[in-house]
């Protein structure tokens, strides 16, 4: 029998791997991929709660979440291409113009 805790634990592990990727990697494309991992872990958590609480809200929220993630990726990669044209770098620690 798989309980809610199995799914939540899987979701937390994926979330932590995503956070580690955002914090550790320098390549901004892989930072964006780690953000996708975080989105997916949250989606697993929402779907699991929706199934075990027998409501539909979590499932519908996952659909909206996937849409927002798609929009986020489109905008993020567009910003990335624009930044790369200007600066010729994709490393996050070299893109520090807005640091105070």
């Amino acid at each position, binding site marked *: 029998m*798989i309980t809610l805790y199995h*799914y*939540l*634990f*899987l979701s*937390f*592990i*994926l979330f*932590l*791997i*995503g*956070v*580690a*990727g955002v*914090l*550790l*990697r*320098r*390549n901004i*494309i*892989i930072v*964006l*991929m*780690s953000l*996708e*991992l975080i989105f*997916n872990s949250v*989606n*697993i958590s929402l*779907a*699991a709660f*929706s*199934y*075990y*609480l*027998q*409501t*539909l809200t979590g*499932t*519908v929220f996952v*659909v*909206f979440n*996937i*849409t*927002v993630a798609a*929009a*986020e*990726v*489109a*905008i993020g*990669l*567009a*910003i990335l*291409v*624009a930044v*790369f044209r*200007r600066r010729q770098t*994709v*490393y996050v620690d070299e893109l520090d*113009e807005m640091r105070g």
Partner: protein
Amino acid sequence: MEQLFFYIFAITAVVAAILVVSMRNAIHSAFFLIVCLLQVAAIFVLLRSPFLAAVQVFIYVGAVMVLFLFAVLVLDVGKEAFREHMHSQSVPSLVMVAALLVIMGFMMFSGKLTVPPGAYNEAALAKNTEVIGRAVYTKFVFPFEVVSLLLLIALIGAVVLVMRERGKGADRNKPEDI
């Protein structure tokens, strides 16, 4: 049986996620991300929502990953050198991730569900797509419209961001004031 499949999908997803974070070539990371997203789709099937699994495969694997591969292609990053792979802040960030794991595990195992289960049990979820579609077009119609507007904004914004500014072609030599 279901438990066996859950463990297969979960372990594959976690291993693929670790490889996404640790691979040096961005193309390899993208392919392992595809593997991870497909496992998440399989997890959605185990959660009795095949509609979500289909949406996951269509949008994530079909659209988002193609965008990522295009970005890797356009940016032409290539393989990173060994020293350029990770940040210099790896020790504090790993400590923070471990602390997050402890806190989240504690919160997960100390909490318990007290909400009574709703009406959508497995029999009601047998017609998954129909049930979700009905909910989206009745109860959740306002967020649905907002999300469609958001997609339109993202479409226009992505085009505007990568468009070269034609009107400013005359004064190309002028130093740009960042």
